[in-house]
């Protein structure tokens, strides 16, 4: 399961990262090293082990259906790189 340059290109696309040719090579090498290192986990038999997604068995945490104040439109947009008429403005979305 060695990671290839093609894998790197695919993940970069999924992660919305632009990677230069040089970076592709570095990533292929570095990710390869790390993945090689984590291979040690294959030594363990984990077939009948259930995964730990949460370290403590807390469950059923709810809130009641109550409305609280929202942010003001100014606060909502205070960090917006671009805005128009109360909307966030974004570059063209190609459909």
């Amino acid at each position, binding site marked *: 399961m060695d990671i290839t340059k093609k894998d790197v290109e695919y993940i970069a696309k999924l992660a919305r990262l632009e990677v230069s040719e040089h970076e592709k090579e570095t990533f292929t090498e570095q990710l390869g090293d790390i993945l090689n290192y984590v291979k040690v986990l294959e030594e363990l038999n984990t077939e009948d082990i259930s995964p730990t997604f949460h370290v403590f068995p807390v469950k*059923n*945490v*709810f*809130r009641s259906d109550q409305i609280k104040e*929202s942010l003001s439109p100014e606060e909502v947009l205070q960090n917006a790189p671009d805005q128009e008429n109360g*909307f*966030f403005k974004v570059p*063209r979305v190609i459909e």
Partner: protein
Amino acid sequence: MSQYEIVIGLEIHLELRTKSKIFCSCPTTFGDAPNTHVCPVCLGLPGVLPVLNKKALDYAVLTGLALNCDINTYSKFDRKNYFYPDLPKAYQISQYDFPVAQNGNLRIQSNGEPRVIGINRVHLEEDAGKLVHSEEGDYSLVDYNRTGVPLVEIVTEPDLRSTEEARGFLESLKKILLYTGVSDCKMEEGSLRCDANVSVRLKGETELGTKTELKNMNSFKAVQKGLEFEVERQISRLEKGERITQETLRWDEGSAQTVSMRSKEEAHDYRYFPEPDLVPMEIGAPMVEEIRKTLPELPLAKRERFIAQYGIPEYDAEILTSTREMADYFEECVKIFPDPKAVSNWLMGELARHMNAAGLNFYNIKIAPQHLADMLEMLQQGKISGKMAKEVFADMFASGKTAGQVVAEKGLEQISDRGVLEKIIDEVIKKHPGPAADYRARKEKALGFLVGQVMKVTRGSANPQMVNEILRDKLK
């Protein structure tokens, strides 16, 4: 066309009718100014955390119960990762392998035949925001008000075999969902949205054909038209020996055709993994039973009961149970005025006619079941005539007054007092000795004239049956 079998599965997204959003306390109100129902949580600001609205879970369980699903004792949320400007966290909190409910079904009538359509799953997730594209198409605007409105996604098995059946299923589903009250199911406001997976295959073939996914059908009509177009497009391609490409299509209402959505063509690698910010749900029997108590009698069961309990025709029962409100209205009336067929006739006739004309529904009409029942009682007792009743009803519908009030105000009450009528009739006979003599001479026609005169004097409020009787008696 008949040599092909159509295979359709639907994915329905339903906005739940909670007051606040699924993971934060912003309101779910539709149609307000952009970005006014937004807080750090639903805006996905750095550092925020979701907390589940219990009501949303209750509604999802209720939906599952209404669709005869198994409720999963263990259920959890997962992140579905993808980039889109209407998705602030760049992941949607959804459910992957442990949805709230699974393995259900919905019984429908298709071409007069009973059919059972499998429900694969019912899961909870958060809605995304809304994109508005500029006219020139060079930029888009984003409104996050809808972000985080609770949704259930209902996925059917690929059990639907025609476009009409798909539409019929959707209508039955909507009816049931409205009964449960989990959503207002307004396709035009997007609170009920439907996507479809469509494929065709030669009859007898056991493998499914290549499917396309059809989106953006914003009404029942659009669902049927979109599906029809797509089915025909697929068949004509196969006929020409061409292959179907697996793709996502958009129904374009304007040009009445399906259009490929290239932006959705990228590999669907959503990298689902368990949402670490939310803890699992244990939906145990006590919780399920608590929610089951809020499950109303559903349309099919109600229809059967109406036929059995009230002895009304199947046709009546079908119409009366088309909405929970109408059925409740009917039953309340019958409780007070126990003549089911008469109540049914008035509901399906006059009431429906007036409601349609005024564009009202059972939530906002002024006439209460008690009022209608009282009016029917007066009609039965002969206090008003059938003809008067329609007039009285129209007034009651418009004003919200009781039948008694309307009748009194208009002086419409029918005169059924024998003494009063005899006095009036004596006067009429005295005034018109000619026709009276004619009747005595077996000229039946003359009676009509005399009745007419009585009606004229009483301005139509005399009980016509009694007038006839008394006249005949007197002129024997």
